[in-house]
């Protein structure tokens, strides 16, 4: 499949202060290849460089070094052409305050060159799809945060983009609104088959939406792959807890397939295995056969949140672990 986004050796440093002496290296040589119609997530703690990377890919920011190709076009030279075919949604959506929902959609439709009836039809359609009918004549600054984000999503598809950039699209939203927004993102992807690049520090969101995820920390991609592959990559394993009476055969546990580590203390055995569901039956049978009486078994599978914590170790981020 063709590549929608291709980035090679992206570096970005921000300079601040009166003499531009303060430097912050935001990106340190990012390489990225995203296929057409893929939903790709960039996950990382605050300050990891997610928004910087997304801004570079959508042509709002120029890299210091490196090449970016969007839909086969060089972002440095073909920025204007790229902008016709991409769009953006950002968390904390901000549009012109005193324009109503409908006027904002008309305004952005005009910016993309949609004329007269074509624009009118498109705006009506988007108002319907994103359930904005009741709010279409309300000024932007009077909308709820959820409604603002819906408008942001509606605006983002007004030019039928081939690539959509979502910068923390559910940041600051209530959980129920977040769930609705995620469903809408999935439905946009399903119906339009567009490539989506999403930044988030919400693990469940990344796992729910993205086919592949890149972990970004301090401007570098630490790992990239599917959620499952990333879980395997950190090798932290699933945890099986067994409460028992009697004796556990420790030497058999050491030799058992898939066991990474285990501890036994005061009638509680904690075993770390590569794949919990696969190993659970075998381990329970082994312990039962040794004569120990099993009282309670719990399985806790590793999730992306554990992977995130593992990858984010060493940063002073206030990682947003809530869903």
């Amino acid at each position: 499949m063709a590549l929608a986004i291709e980035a090679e050796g992206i570096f970005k440093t921000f300079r601040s202060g009166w003499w531009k002496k303060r430097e912050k290296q935001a990106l340190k040589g990012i390489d990225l290849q995203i296929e057409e119609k893929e939903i790709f997530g960039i996950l990382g703690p605050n300050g990891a460089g997610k928004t910087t990377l997304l801004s570079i890919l959508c042509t709002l920011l120029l890299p210091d070094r490196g090449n970016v190709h969007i839909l086969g076009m060089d972002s440095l030279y073909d920025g204007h052409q790229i902008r016709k075919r991409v769009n953006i949604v950002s968390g904390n959506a901000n549009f012109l305050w005193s324009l109503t929902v409908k006027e904002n959609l008309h305004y952005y439709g005009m910016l993309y060159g949609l004329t007269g009836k074509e624009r009118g039809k498109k705006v009506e359609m988007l108002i319907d799809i994103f359930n904005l009918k009741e709010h279409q004549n309300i000024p932007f600054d009077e909308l709820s945060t959820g409604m603002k984000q819906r408008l942001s999503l509606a605006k983002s598809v007004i030019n039928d983009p081939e690539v959509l950039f979502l910068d923390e699209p559910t940041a600051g939203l209530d959980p129920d609104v977040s769930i609705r927004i995620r469903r809408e993102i999935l439905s946009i992807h399903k119906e339009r088959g567009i490539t989506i690049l999403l930044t988030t520090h919400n693990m469940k969101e990344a796992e729910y939406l993205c086919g592949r995820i890149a972990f970004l920390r301090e401007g570098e991609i630490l790992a990239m792959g599917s959620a499952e592959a990333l879980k395997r990559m950190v090798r932290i394993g699933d945890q099986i807890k067994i409460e028992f009476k009697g004796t556990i055969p420790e030497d058999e546990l050491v030799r058992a397939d898939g066991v990474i580590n285990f501890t036994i203390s005061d009638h509680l055995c904690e075993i770390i295995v590569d794949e919990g569901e696969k190993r659970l039956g075998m381990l329970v049978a082994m312990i039962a056969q040794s004569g120990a009486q099993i009282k309670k078994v719990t399985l806790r599978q590793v999730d992306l949140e554990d992977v995130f914590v593992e990858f984010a170790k060493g940063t002073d981020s206030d990682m947003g672990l809530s869903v």
Partner: protein
Amino acid sequence: MSSSNLQKALTQIWAFLFKNWIIAKRNVFAIFEILFWPVVGFFSVGLLTSFLELDSNKTGFILVGIISMSVIQVCQIDVAYVLLYDLWSKSLKHTFIAPVQSFQLILGSWLIGVVRSFFVFLLLSIFSSLAFGLDFLRPGIGPLVLFLLGLFLTAASVGMSVCILVLLFGYMADVAAWSFSGLISLICGIYYPVFILPFPFPQIAQAIPLTYFLAYFRSFYGFNEGFKNVLAWGFGLAGVYIVVEAFLFKAVLQRARRTGVLIKLSE
């Protein structure tokens, strides 16, 4: 350019006109901008000319100045607003992620500025005729059109300067939208001939197109400030400034994309 591309380009220009118009329509402050302040300023100065018992030519000299100032102020602020509204709404990045050219942004906002400031001109010229007996049509339609065009171009140039400063300095620069035109009025001799200014201001005034447009229109009311080829100088300078500022605007926009100002101003 194909007709559909032309239609798209015109629609993009219209977008900025639409934005400024809708926001101005909803904004009480906008009514003050086009009605209250120009009218208050006009009558304050007009009544002062009555009190000082100035002859009709001197009254004309001063009223031409105050009306010109109001026209430029209202027109240039619309050009500046095209970025300021986005700046205040923190929606700058949504405008610049769209495939719009900088000239479309300036042209669309300038057109609405021309409409609004022409309304101000009509209003004040009616008042000046009724209250102070100054006939703005005395020079004839042609000179009046040239004079107004000169004012509108000067306003475009001032508004573009504000936009450039906004992209360079962000929120710190929005004050320029109200102060630039005041500074120009001081130097270009809104209420007095520029030759009474101390050195080096008369020389600086000669580098500003408004000086020539004022001299041109006032010449029909019996004043000769000694400038030659005033229209050529006025339009020439205005044209040069607009072209230079168009390039500067593109350059600072590129700089804003490099430094991250567009993102910062949208947060």
